[in-house]
């Protein structure tokens, strides 16, 4: 569903992505682990097109999308959430979701109809709000909801484009352990055919949701396999626990 081939990227002297090749099957749930600065977010930025790789290819549903701009990739079914909330502040939860849904529903450029009243948009907004438990806050403005709820909305906005592949960048960063746990329960409720790639720094949570695990260190894939194999990996422990202690 989503594949990278020998992806490579440097910022000046910093080599942030080193020859990364990944392959996600349809419906696969993969977690990317790795210490801070390993290049996880930069990898996402390349996948969605916000950063152009120096070398390598990105394939979405079997087609090379390496040269496609951000918006076109998104319309082909690639959606992401951000590590740092990237919401429409000043608008309500409903309006945030509706803006995302209106692109998918094809009413983002219409002139005489109100996109927010479109039947299709309303249906998506309701569906997503239920999926990520946002119904109680639906009419609240972004500035009126707590940080944790904003993290849910961050993912909700990405979901409202009805993607084939969903990329989530540390969706539970900064929220308490209980909310993080709740978030992972919520992931279980998402459609099984949705391909999901999550960056997660909490190992236990990662193991709880992952079908497969990829570990990045200094921009390089140092592990790619099943969670049970990762758990026993000394390499992973060394890298990860080392970084953990620094943090």
């Amino acid at each position: 569903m989503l594949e990278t081939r020998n992806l490579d990227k440097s910022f000046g002297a910093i080599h942030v992505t080193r020859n990364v090749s990944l392959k996600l099957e349809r419906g696969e749930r993969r977690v990317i682990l790795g210490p801070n600065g390993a290049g996880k977010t930069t990898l996402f930025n390349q996948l969605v097109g916000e950063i152009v790789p120096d070398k390598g290819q990105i394939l979405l549903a079997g087609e090379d999308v390496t040269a496609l701009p951000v918006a076109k990739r998104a319309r082909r079914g690639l959606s992401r959430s951000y590590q740092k909330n990237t919401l429409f502040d000043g608008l309500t939860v409903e309006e945030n979701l509706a803006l995302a849904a209106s692109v998918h529903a094809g009413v983002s450029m219409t002139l005489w109809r109100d996109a927010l009243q479109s039947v299709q948009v309303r249906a998506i907004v309701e569906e997503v709000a239920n999926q990520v438990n946002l119904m109680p806050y639906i009419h609240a403005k972004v500035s009126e909801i707590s940080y944790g709820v904003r993290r849910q909305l961050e993912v909700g906005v990405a979901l409202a484009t009805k993607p084939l592949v969903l990329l989530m960048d540390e969706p539970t960063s900064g929220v308490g352990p209980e909310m993080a746990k709740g978030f992972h329960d919520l992931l279980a409720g998402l459609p099984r055919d949705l391909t999901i790639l999550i960056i997660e720094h909490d190992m236990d949570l990662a193991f709880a949701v992952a079908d497969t695990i990829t570990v990045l260190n200094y921009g390089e894939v140092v592990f790619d396999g099943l969670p049970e194999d990762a758990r026993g990996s000394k390499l992973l422990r060394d890298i990860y626990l080392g970084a953990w202690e620094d943090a």
Partner: protein
Amino acid sequence: MFRHTPLRYAALIILFSGALFTAFTAGYFGMEILTEILILAILVLALDLVAGFGGMVSLAHGALMGLGAYAFVALATKAGLDPWVAASAAVAITAGTGWVIGAICARSHGIYFIMATLAFGQMGYSYFFEQSFFGGDDGMVGPRRFDLGFIGINLNDSRSFALFCLAILGVIYLVAMAILRSGLGRSLTGVTHNEKRMRALGLNVWRVKADVFGLSGAMAGIAGVLAAQHIMFISPKMLHWTVSGEALVVVILGGLGTLVGPLVGAVAFVVMKHELSHVTTYWHLIVGLVLIAVVMSRANGIFGFIEARFRPKTDRMIQSIQTRDDAKEIAKDA
């Protein structure tokens, strides 16, 4: 998201009744001032659409209005087209030009966007200033006004013409409202709030900007056609960047991104101009001082100030909670 609050409806009704009252009571001179306000109001509505709602501060709107006026006059007098046909063609031209300017400038932001629009505007100004076919710096004499004889209205009568401009302004206001509530308008709001995210959601951001700029250009063109019919004479001065600058002053004075505010601004500006120019030749200075006072008050223009005044206490309480929450989040992010 654009919403029409009761206060905005109230302001509209007051403005509309005021215009009607003036149209039926004022003498010749008052009627001229009213018409001037109405035409300026159309231009600043067009500007508010891009600058207030789209964050695209344009210094090309005076030029778009001037282009509309020139296209209309040239097509009606030189090509001999019927004024209605000439006007429609002129508006189509300004819409197309606005669309192209919007599309080209879509990637730039802030000061760069302003400078790019300024460059386009000044190109238009220089062209009409130099081009002898359009009368060069002497300008051109305008054509007859629209013929509304078939419904028994003679627009050469200044009251009829003022009422006609009021009707057009009303229609344009409704259109602007419809645009802001349409899919395109909602997307524009999204782009203004968070362009990066809208792109990541699959939106063609440049198309949204270009389309809105084109629609705004059409409105500026209508203002130009009416201005040409009003003063029956046009000169390259209409395209000069100071006209755009003045329109921007009016929008900010009235309240950026409120749609009603710029109408208030247009009334305030033209009335100040006429009242003060009797008293002193330095009237610009006083308008400048008023603008500084409005900006320094940190309200969103005159109308923003009124809205803040009438906002119930509860609203302000919610806001103070919001700022505390935001501070917490910033602390968390750091």
